[in-house]
């Protein structure tokens, strides 16, 4: 009887564990396999706009024909046309530089919040999250307003006599970086704050007690202990920025094409689903590199570096 109950409980416990896997399989793995399949197809003027299409009715022969028709041509194409490598590199460049700026801006911000009086901290964290209350798209549009020729920024700069003629902020890389840093700042600040907030204040006292001035204690104690937060923040910013479409499209100029825009073009303008899918799969592969790096770092910190 008891045995039975225990077996039942463990069965239900297993079911609970199964749910996230089921979710991932259904909404991540299955769509990914579909995209992967399309990326190995060829474009066609048809509905859907690619071949081969799997014919279940043809049975075993149909399946064989389907696999025979798949090819990696699209991936070869990504390497042969300079447009794709250039967009990939541009995306990585924008993501890397944006993440660096985000870290430079976000770290002092998170540090300031973590060191402010306890009762003030929830309010400050709230202020960091507050922009999420408004639609992302609307906020990016608002930046167009600020950055345009007769916008708020030029207004202020002209009034203060910092510049004599309006600056063309919009449609430039600067505008992209402003948009990226503004939009992704909470993703950098929150993990950093979480890491800094749980740090024991007495560690800094111990450092001071052992002859380490406050400034040096930051580099020797605070920074090393916040590295997991730094890594998490960088990852949370780098990956979505690399695939960002809206910000470069609305704020950037035509000379800067990030991979998200190229993908959009292939899909909506050229109706080339297979190439668009290949771009997406290749991007995923590219972003797996920092992910794996982070995983390894986590693993090492769990096992303990010797």
């Amino acid at each position, binding site marked *: 009887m008891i045995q039975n109950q225990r077996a039942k409980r463990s069965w239900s416990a297993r079911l609970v564990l199964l749910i996230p896997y089921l979710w991932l399989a259904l909404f991540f793995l299955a769509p990914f396999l579909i995209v992967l399949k399309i990326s190995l197809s060829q474009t066609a003027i048809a509905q859907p706009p690619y071949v081969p299409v799997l014919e279940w009715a043809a049975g075993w022969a149909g399946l064989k024909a389907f696999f025979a028709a798949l090819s990696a041509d699209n991936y070869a194409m990504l390497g042969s046309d300079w447009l794709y490598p250039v967009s990939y590199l541009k995306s990585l460049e924008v993501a890397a530089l944006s993440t660096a700026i985000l870290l430079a801006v976000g770290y002092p911000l998170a540090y300031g919040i973590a060191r402010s009086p306890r009762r003030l901290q929830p309010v400050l964290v709230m202020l960091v999250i507050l922009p999420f209350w408004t639609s992302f798209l609307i906020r990016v549009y608002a930046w167009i307003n600020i950055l345009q020729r007769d916008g708020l920024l030029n207004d202020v700069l002209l009034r203060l006599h910092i510049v004599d003629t309006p600056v063309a902020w919009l449609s430039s890389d600067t505008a992209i970086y402003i948009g990226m840093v503004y939009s992704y700042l909470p993703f950098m600040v929150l993990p950093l704050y979480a890491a800094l907030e749980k740090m*024991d204040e007495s*560690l800094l006292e111990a450092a001071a*007690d052992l*002859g380490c*001035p406050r400034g040096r204690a930051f580099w020797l*104690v605070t920074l090393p*202990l916040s590295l997991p937060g730094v890594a998490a923040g960088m990852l949370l910013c780098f990956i979505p920025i690399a695939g960002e479409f809206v910000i470069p499209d609305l704020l950037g100029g035509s000379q800067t094409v990030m991979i998200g825009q190229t993908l959009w073009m292939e899909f909506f303008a050229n109706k080339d689903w297979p190439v668009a899918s290949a771009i997406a799969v290749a991007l995923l592969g590219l972003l797996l590199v920092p992910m794996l790096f982070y995983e390894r770092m986590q693993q090492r910190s769990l096992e303990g570096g010797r």
Partner: protein
Amino acid sequence: MAEAATQEQTAGDRPLVRFAGVAKRFGQITAVEEFTLDIGEGEFFALLGPSGCGKTTLLRMLAGFETPSAGSILLDGEDIVAVPPHRRPVNMMFQNYALFPHLSVAGNIAFGLRQERAGRAEIAERVAEMLALVRMPDFGRRRIDQLSGGQRQRVALARALIKRPRVLLLDEPMAALDKKLRAETQFELMELQRRLGTTFVIVTHDQDEAMTVADRIAVMDRGRLAQVAAPSEIYERPNSRWVADFIGEVTLLEGMLAEGAIETVLGRFRAAMPAGGRKRDTVWLALRPEKLHIAAQRPADGNLNAIPGTVFEIGYRGDMSIYKVRLADRSLMKVALANTSARGRASFGIDDVVWLSWPPEAGWVLTR
């Protein structure tokens, strides 16, 4: 004899640490007030008091983490109030140890020397020396989270000692250890202090710990110094009812001072006159449980003070039993009886009528 006693109980002519009229206020709250105290070179000194009495604040002021609101703190005759913590020749062992989780055991111990930019070879040598001192020679490469509580405590001790501080500050160093380990560690700490000759200042709320390890104890009450003396002095000759009650068990009988005796509602008891006590002053007779004798009959010796009562409660503690005896005025008096034989001698049961007795010199008269 009297001179030797005073020698032992003061910090000497040239104290290593001197608190002079130190006060510390946090907003409306006063943590330390009018605090004056000398600590001598090579002393094992304890700051003892209940939580919130200001003892930790005092230690933190000595380390430099808090600045006094008033008064001065002298180290070797020099005011150190303005000296930042990283320049003070004192080191602290923190209550939670505050070991750096991202550094190895050796890395933690070497931290202080690295700040002095000591050479690689010297650091390695002194770290090894410290590891040997705390009897953990093979633990240098371990991570902090791989250590037990007792091992962490040793690493914290080694880390604080490597810079050879003028004063080692210990903030509740044994609070996180279990009882058995605590007792062992206390003796190890005493041995270490004797060997190094370093001045140790320990903060504790545990009176047994303070009595065991310290040469002298400062008992603190609500931010003020209540009494400073050797452990036996504090126990045998407390200067107030508060100290008598805080240290160990005591029964206090209120009465009026007479010639060589004290008059209480329970009778007249012979006792030594307190210094500065005048006749008809309200005083209190402090009686320690282990100094009382319990018997079925009134003792024949007329020199002994004696008082009848009935056994109200018996607490068995293994090594001894504590009897609570109800007196004529319905107050309770505690008596300790050592359980010297396994069978127990003629012991008493609840509601038995007993006589408590003590020689005049066993009582201590308090004037406040």
